[in-house]
């Protein structure tokens, strides 16, 4: 059973932020797939006084393409990410990562913004959006602010959102559409499971030379995180076995995982090295096949 709470369904973003600012115990609800589960877990502390439903905020459901970016409203659901022709064409890694999550019935509810704001260390979209250089837009009482996604995650379950603020959108730069991007995830079951470890990789290649590289990990640290030292090991090199091995080892060294019910910390460290190597190998083989 869930404890009782009041219910609001504001028609504007400003009204929603106002409701959240006025009541520190009110919580925003997008798809609800995480929050509804938390609400029936009494060990998470006393429940919210009110739920502020974001269902009526049509602006948060929009997908807008500009000349230099694709902007996803925070309440775009995962099924839409999978089915949207523009996303499929420009950033095919996003539908692939979204398909890892939940089931069709869950993906019809769960939102991109919810996956970020829940700030689970194991969430699948953060590493992918990190390597795509995504930025987020935050609305609240003051002026709207824009933040690099890397600044958004502050700890397990903690984001940069202040009381009375809401995530409004996620923006992916157009330049990222030219990168080769993969997401590798280790899990027990393909559906309805979360990552034991995950690695997103984005490379900009000129011939066989790596011009730029992004590597981000999930489920191996308190927040999803980039691994700059592993990225530097790839940049200006060729995507060969030695370079790939070096980057994968550096990713392992950067990991700070915990032991939990899903896996031990040493296992996660070993697996994150494997995932990075596997993803880079795939990119290298893909290039050889294409050549």
């Amino acid at each position, binding site marked *: 059973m869930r404890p009782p709470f009041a*219910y609001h369904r504001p028609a504007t973003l400003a009204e929603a932020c106002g409701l959240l600012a006025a009541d520190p115990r009110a919580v925003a*609800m997008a798809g*609800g797939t995480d929050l509804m589960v938390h609400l029936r877990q009494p060990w998470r502390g006393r429940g919210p006084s009110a739920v502020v439903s974001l*269902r009526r905020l049509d602006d948060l459901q929009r997908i807008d393409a500009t000349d230099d970016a694709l902007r996803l409203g925070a309440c775009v659901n995962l099924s839409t990410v999978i089915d949207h022709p523009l996303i499929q064409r420009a950033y095919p890694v996003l539908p692939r990562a979204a398909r890892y999550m939940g*089931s*069709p*019935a869950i993906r*019809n*509810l769960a939102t991109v913004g919810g996956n970020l704001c829940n700030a689970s260390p194991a969430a699948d979209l953060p590493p992918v959006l990190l390597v795509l250089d995504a930025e987020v837009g935050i609305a609240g009482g003051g002026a709207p602010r824009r933040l690099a996604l890397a600044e958004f995650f502050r700890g397990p379950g903690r984001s940069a959102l202040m009381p009375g603020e809401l995530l409004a959108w996620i923006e992916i730069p157009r330049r990222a559409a030219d990168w080769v991007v993969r997401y590798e995830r280790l899990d027990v079951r393909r559906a309805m499971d979360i990552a034991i470890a995950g690695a997103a990789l984005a490379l900009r290649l000129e011939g066989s030379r790596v011009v730029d590289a992004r590597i981000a990990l999930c489920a191996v640290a308190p927040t999803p995180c980039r691994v700059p030292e592993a990225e530097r090991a790839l940049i200006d090199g060729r995507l060969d076995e030695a370079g790939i091995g070096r980057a994968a080892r550096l990713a392992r060294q950067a990991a700070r995982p915990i032991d939990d019910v899903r896996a031990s910390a040493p296992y996660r460290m070993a697996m994150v090295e494997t995932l990075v190597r596997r993803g880079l190998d795939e990119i290298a083989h893909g290039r050889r096949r294409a050549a």
Partner: protein
Amino acid sequence: MPDQSRPALDQYPLTLTVNGRSVRRDVPGERTLLELLREDLRLIGTNLACDSGDCGACTVLVDGRPQTACLVLALDLEGCEVTTVEGLAARWRRQLDRDAAGDPAPPRGAPAAGPASLHPVQQGFLEEGGAQCGFCTAGMVVAAVGLLEECLGAGRPPTEADIRAGLEGNLCRCTGYVKIVRAVQVAAERMRAARGPTP
């Protein structure tokens, strides 16, 4: 147990369509769609099992797409159209009626759609033995209908992989899924034949 001490203030008006009928209720904020269906509307075909979105037993269609009713606040469905397992046969008959109204000549060689009281997916589960204890069946059938409507609506017959992916969120602890997949394949063929080529 409903909380009798709850002040009337905490109830909010809700209007939605359930199985083709308009429903109006005053609902507390924390009421889930699943609780509304089972306790307020006595539509107990939709089952409560895990209550956390993991098992799929409570799957219903919301505006034609599968959702787990235990994860949805009832009040979030203002103005929405919900179909439960109890409403599937009527949903199917409405689709056939609409086809007939739009197309004076019935599709050639269309076989009977099965007894009028069942949706082809339900008929498929019956004939192929797609249920054992039955606890997952309502959610399984509803998820399959959502999957088949999407595939057939897009004009592509579902592959076995499509069916397995469509049912990936529905747990069955009895059957091993083989007969369930076969039931959905049988249903897909019947639905396609009964509705003719999609425009």
